[in-house]
């Protein structure tokens, strides 16, 4: 058996091991590769940066724990930025399986930044209906969420002072891992009730959202762990995403090399078979 044949029949567990090591070693011994900021991530940052103190920032955490590695760092970075700018944060989720995680994220960042529940931020929780929730919020926020996640009546909360519907939101960001997510927020929210919005998503979803970005339907997009790392760099608070970027680069490099080697061995084998 030739080298090419042996390599093409290699035990897949060896490839798993290579990928595992390429991920693990940079996490244990980071080198700090530079992170270039993309215009789409900067657009979200710039918009939040330009918002005056007390503006209403709606953050919809439309994901569950299975997408935590990508969207959790995005949520943490966005919340840190919003709290630093003293924006009024209205958080919610359209995913019932993500309510506990979303509450944990908001409470953790609020604790770190010294923000007060119901005064500086509120977590509305989840309401049934998927996209219909967005339409209902556009008509009346208080009938959609009569109480917040902790059961307190939303009517009269200081953080929601002057906020009656989505028309009173200054900027919205949906961190989506699927449907309902960024697209639903654009279609049933921004397009109908005319507020500015940006998006954050998993890497798998990012290519599908670029058409919305180019046409100006969303003003910015944070894509995957890479986008989260860029946002962390922008706010000057390096966290989980930046720490993972070395590992991401190393695994990508390993995959590129493996793809090239596979092609090389495939063509070498084909040439040999044609010759014989």
């Amino acid at each position, binding site marked *: 058996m030739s080298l090419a044949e042996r390599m093409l029949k290699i035990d897949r*567990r060896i490839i*798993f091991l290579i*990928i*595992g090591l390429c*991920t*693990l070693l940079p*996490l*244990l011994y980071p080198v700090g590769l530079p992170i270039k900021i993309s215009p789409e991530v900067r657009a979200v940052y710039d918009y939040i940066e330009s918002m005056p103190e007390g503006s209403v920032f709606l953050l919809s955490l439309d994901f*569950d724990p299975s997408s*935590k*590695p*990508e969207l*959790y760092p995005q949520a943490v970075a966005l919340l840190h930025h919003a709290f630093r700018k003293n924006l009024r944060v209205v958080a919610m989720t359209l995913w*019932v*399986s993500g*309510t*506990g995680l979303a509450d944990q994220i908001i409470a953790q960042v609020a604790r770190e930044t010294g923000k007060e529940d119901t005064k500086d931020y509120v977590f509305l*929780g*989840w*309401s*049934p209906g998927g*996209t*219909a929730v967005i*339409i209902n919020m556009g008509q009346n926020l208080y009938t959609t969420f*009569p*109480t917040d996640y902790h*059961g307190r009546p939303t009517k009269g909360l200081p953080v929601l002072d002057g906020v009656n519907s989505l028309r009173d939101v200054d900027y919205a960001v949906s961190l989506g891992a699927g449907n309902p997510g960024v*697209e639903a927020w*654009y*279609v*049933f929210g921004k*397009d*109908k009730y005319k507020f500015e919005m940006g998006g954050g998503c*998993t*890497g*798998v979803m*990012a*290519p*599908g959202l670029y*058409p919305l970005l*180019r*046409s*100006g*339907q969303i003003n910015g997009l944070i*894509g*995957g*762990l*890479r986008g989260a790392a860029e946002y962390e760099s922008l706010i000057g608070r390096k966290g*989980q995403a930046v*720490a*993972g970027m070395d*590992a*991401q680069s190393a*695994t*990508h490099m390993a*995959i590129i090399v493996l793809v090239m080697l596979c092609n090389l061995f495939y063509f070498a084998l084909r040439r040999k078979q044609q010759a014989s």
Partner: protein
Amino acid sequence: MSVESIIGAWVATGLTLFIFSFLYRDNPLFKLAEHLYVGVSVGYTIVKTYDTVLVHLIWKPIVENHEWTLLIPVFIGMLMLARYVPKVSWLSRYAFAFIVGVGAGLAIPRTISSFILKQVEDTVRPLVALVPGEGAVFTWDLLNPASGVNTIIILIGVTSVLFYFFFSVEHTGPGKAVARTGIFFLMIAFGAAFGYTVMARMSLLIGRLTDLIGYADGSYGRPTLWLLLLTVGALVLLSRRVKSEPPPER
């Protein structure tokens, strides 16, 4: 460190390692973690839905605030359950008709506006921009999404891909060239999507490994190390047991 955090760390580490053990081969530890994941997520969803919908959005407003109008959606929703009683199952059609009608009515105009009209508008942008003092300007900047050259690329891409999926005309002669161009654009799109998918999957691996590294800390009782030893040991034992067992009689 709170007891809940320590227990959480041990459970998370154990389940992660059990799931990862599938990379070696299918085994009972992986099955245990897989079934737990499905069970816990379904259980969580049922409990949250019951608490939010039945208790907070239906029971409390009706009983405490006397919002009787809520009985109308409750009645329509209850009609769905009629499917389980063959004699009155036809009643459920009213509930489905209501949902389909409202859903389609809400979705169709918004989807056409957002995904067709806005995207068509973006595809047929003007090739030149009118700049005061300079007149009509064509921009060659590939990095600027709104540049003239990118508008041409998008126009060629959209038309050639649409032509590729137009099967009423045989793809020969000039048509073949257009269809081939469409394939090139499709391949680039698939490549970009696959690249992003790889990035996303690696991000998930990074997330789990980051947690495993964190849980190797002494403050948690080093669950990563102990449970890794346990998992490897269990895999070795299972592997030996499989080898020593005689093949089943046929």
